[in-house]
């Protein structure tokens, strides 16, 4: 038996199976109990208690390695209290494309974090991955609300939906990981770093799912979700910031840093600079980006050695120190990171070299 036992099975029977069943049945029963518990708890409790529910779920869930996904139908409302469960872990695809795409995208994202970085979900404690599809009416956005991922359907003009691109799903879930690790303030340079980290791991989710090398990857964010009013292939390009669509104004270098009051200080614009630094480092290191540059960025993130109000320079130095710790002083990886941040104008060449040499 695989997946979840049907939820019409009474909880006491499930508990009996969980205690005495075969390993597969036991796991399945635990999953179902956990999900039932999750759904009941998450509907009625506030955000703080949801965290506790997630931890209890993690205990029931075991040692990690498998996601616990729940996809809800927001039914075109923005008040999600009335959301209906569409698909839970272990269940077959349902007759709703967005629900299945969100389910699969969350699975791919979980897989990258677990297989490449041994991180068990957003909180590294098996936190359930909750996604709401059909959020709002013609809603042109997807976002992480601190507990769940929300996906609009798009208005059909600017966007055709947000679940079709798995890098978008990886981007949103990564906002949760950033919240749980560095807690980068969402304004100015720390906000642009927050955005960039979501793009980095969003792209890595796609590359991991397609088993691509840095050279093979397209390094695009949001490919396939643009509507007819936007001319281009995607929303952002980490390889060539500013070229993804006709309104793309992302800079690739500090000389193009945009100062603005909009978008919390241009967090989606200036993220082009750290995005490009990551691309340059990954391209120079070569191979699968999650194993080289991705590992360096992830360890920098999870080390907590970056302050919530970090500017580009502090983050760059932190990645350089991580590269030296992981791969050695003067290693090709450390040099690649140093040169990448220098190329985008965040580190000065000499300083980067000094840092690399200790």
């Amino acid at each position: 038996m695989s997946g979840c036992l049907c939820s019409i099975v009474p909880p006491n029977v499930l508990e009996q199976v969980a205690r005495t069943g075969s390993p597969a049945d036991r796991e399945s029963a635990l999953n179902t109990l956990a999900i039932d518990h999750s759904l009941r708890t998450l509907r009625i409790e506030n955000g703080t208690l949801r965290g506790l529910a997630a931890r209890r779920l993690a205990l029931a869930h075991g040692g990690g390695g498998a996601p616990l996904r729940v996809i809800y139908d927001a039914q075109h409302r923005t008040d999600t209290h009335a959301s209906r469960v569409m698909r839970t872990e272990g269940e077959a695809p349902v007759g709703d494309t967005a629900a299945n795409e969100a389910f699969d995208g969350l699975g791919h994202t979980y897989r990258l974090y677990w297989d490449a970085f041994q991180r068990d979900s957003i909180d590294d404690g098996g936190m359930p991955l909750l996604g709401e599809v059909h959020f709002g009416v013609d809603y042109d956005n997807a976002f992480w609300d601190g507990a769940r991922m929300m996906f609009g359907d798009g208005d059909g003009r600017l966007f055709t939906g947000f679940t079709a691109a798995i890098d978008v799903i990886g981007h949103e879930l990564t906002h949760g990981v950033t919240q749980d690790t560095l807690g980068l303030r969402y304004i100015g340079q720390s906000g642009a770093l927050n955005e960039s980290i979501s793009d980095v791991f969003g792209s890595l989710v796609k590359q991991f799912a397609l088993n691509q090398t840095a050279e093979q990857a397209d390094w695009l964010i949001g490919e396939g979700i643009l509507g007819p009013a936007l001319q281009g292939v995607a929303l952002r390009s980490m390889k060539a910031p500013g070229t993804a669509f006709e309104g793309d104004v992302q800079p690739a270098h500090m000389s193009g840093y945009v100062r603005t009051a909009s978008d919390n200080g241009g967090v989606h614009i200036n993220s082009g600079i750290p995005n490009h630094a990551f691309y340059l480092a990954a391209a120079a290191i070569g191979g699968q980006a999650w194993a080289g540059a991705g590992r360096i960025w992830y360890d920098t993130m999870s080390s907590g050695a970056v302050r919530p109000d970090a500017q580009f320079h502090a983050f760059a130095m932190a990645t350089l120190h991580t590269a030296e710790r992981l791969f050695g002083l003067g290693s090709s990886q450390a040099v690649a990171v140093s040169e990448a941040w220098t190329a985008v104008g965040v580190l000065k060449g000499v300083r980067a070299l000094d840092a690399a040499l200790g």
Partner: protein
Amino acid sequence: MTRRSDEGDQLELERSGGFAGLTLRALVPFEELSQPQRAAVDDSLSSPPRRRPQPDRFQYQLRVGERRVVLEEDDFPAVLRPLLRRLSVPR
């Protein structure tokens, strides 16, 4: 309502942020606003709510003359929602 609705006045509405980071704008002549909409604009300008930026949420800016306020998505007045239809990508 502390501001006169002179014929030349207009509301500049801007939506930025969101996952896409697109900035959209609309100009709405003040005379096309209903009384509750004018009151909502004035309230927002007079007593701006505390900023609490959240990843990938929309951010709204209302500007009337020299007065300007930035609002989080959840603080955008419901009575102004019909105006969002007028937003477009600046060319």
